């Protein structure tokens, strides 16, 4: 049994990224879309950590980056949810297809 190496992890993160992206493209619920986005960000986190661990173990910049990403993702989610709430107030819906008023 081969040890888990960088390619495996990258494969995982790629899969995760595209699952997130697929979710973002197809879900209609704004909250679910937000969750899909988190998935994408997390896959990036995995990337950073993996690169740090396997390729550049001498410093921790990748890991630090991940911490910041997590923080900012939280902030982003907070603002996004506030916006969703406001949208829900005005249209009684959190379906993304109900927010297509402006186009062309």
């Amino acid at each position, binding site marked *: 049994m081969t040890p888990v190496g960088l390619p495996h992890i990258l494969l995982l993160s790629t899969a995760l990224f595209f699952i997130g992206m697929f979710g973002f493209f197809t879900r209609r619920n704004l909250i679910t879309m937000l969750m899909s*986005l988190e998935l994408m*960000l997390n896959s990036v986190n995995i990337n950073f950590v993996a*690169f740090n661990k396997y*390729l*550049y173990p001498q410093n921790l910049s990748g890991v630090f980056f991940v911490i910041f990403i997590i923080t900012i993702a939280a902030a982003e989610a907070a603002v996004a949810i506030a916006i969703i709430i406001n*949208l829900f107030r005005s*249209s009684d819906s959190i379906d993304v297809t109900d927010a297509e*008023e402006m186009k062309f």
Partner: protein
Amino acid sequence: MGLELLFTLKHELLISLSIFLLLFIFVGSNHTKGATIIHIVNALLLISVFFFLFEPKQSFVFNQMFESNGLIQFQKSILSLGLLLISALSFQWLKHHKNVIEFYLLLLSSLLGMFFMISAANMLFFYLGLELATIPLAAAANFDLEKRKSGEAAMKLIYSSAFSSALLLLGISFVYGLTGSLNFTEISEKIPVNALSQFAFILVFSGFAFKMSVVPFHLWTADVYEGAPVPVTAFLSVVSKAAISFVFVQVLFKVFIHLELSYTISLAVVSICTMLLGNLFAMRQENIKRFLAFSSIAQVGYILIALMGSHEVAQSAIIYFLLVYVFSNLAAFGVIGIISNSLGKENISDYKGFYQQNKFLSWALAIALFSLAGVPPTAGFFGKFFLILAAASKGYYLLIVIAALNMIISFYYYLRIVRNIFMETSENPMPQVLVQPITKVALIVCLIGMIVLGLYGPVYEYIAAFAKPF
């Protein structure tokens, strides 16, 4: 050391100070009048505008993560000026708004984020700055809480920007994987030229492209511009775009210098798309904010072709163009904001016969549009000419021809509005609109800026003096 740190971080410190001031003194105190707050913030911003004159020298702080030099300080001043003008131009709207403090808190935070972003010498710092600049804007876009369009705009902005952040981060992670470093200088030294690095570059590029509204990453722009309140739209369109363009120049010329061929090809493709689509969409718009959104997309196309030219000319041309763009676009948004706020009219057809009652506003809007179109004697002419001159410096004449053709299309739609203002007559034209004195001053500053920046050569020379080989 301490004093030097103070000078290096003077813009950031001042803005932070303003934010704290607002947070701790005014939040919750109901008896402070909106106008007072506005004047205080304006005064602080005015100081920030002139900061670039003091001690503009090269220095690094925060363990080489934060860079400052004369050019960067000048750029920061430009951004401060942008916000100052927006604040002055939307005085009427802000004065009666109950959430004026929150408005400033959001925009000042965003501005602070931009300052960090510009000064970043490290991917982490850049990312932080970028997010700090973006997230408050999503909240600000939703500032008209009761308007549904405003909510939709904010939603589109935050989702699109989160999506683009994810891709940008993926790109950064690849860059990190390839080089093991987040520092700009180190990345540029270590980055290999292979398929993966090019892919990583495209991802990072897309992140910038998103913020700059480059086709095909631009689709959020028009919707957000239309839905957001005019001052926010103005901020998005001018300050935010200028900030990211400043960084883009640095990143392309500094970090990805070894990928010059890749970025040139990418730029060639997207710049053509950007000019063409921006123009084609702008032609057809009825909502004037949406119209300006597309027109600003088309303007970005010209910046992109300049980026393909030789570095010194390109850098100074772009900064100069953005400076001019601040004045021109803000004058346009200023007039539109005044009308939107006092009459609630945002359609191009509403401007028929505008000149009958509002002479000053008409001329301000017309000159702003001329400047955007690049007609002399306005500075827009010089800005655009220099961009194209820069693009030609490496011999991309075909692109110049395409740009020139696009300028004709853009001319059509700018003149369309001028035609409505001056030539059409309307049964019931817009009544005379009261313009606040401070707003008038701001408009006059914009007009002077639009005229003088071009005719008075030393402004460009000042910028050009910063341009140096990367």
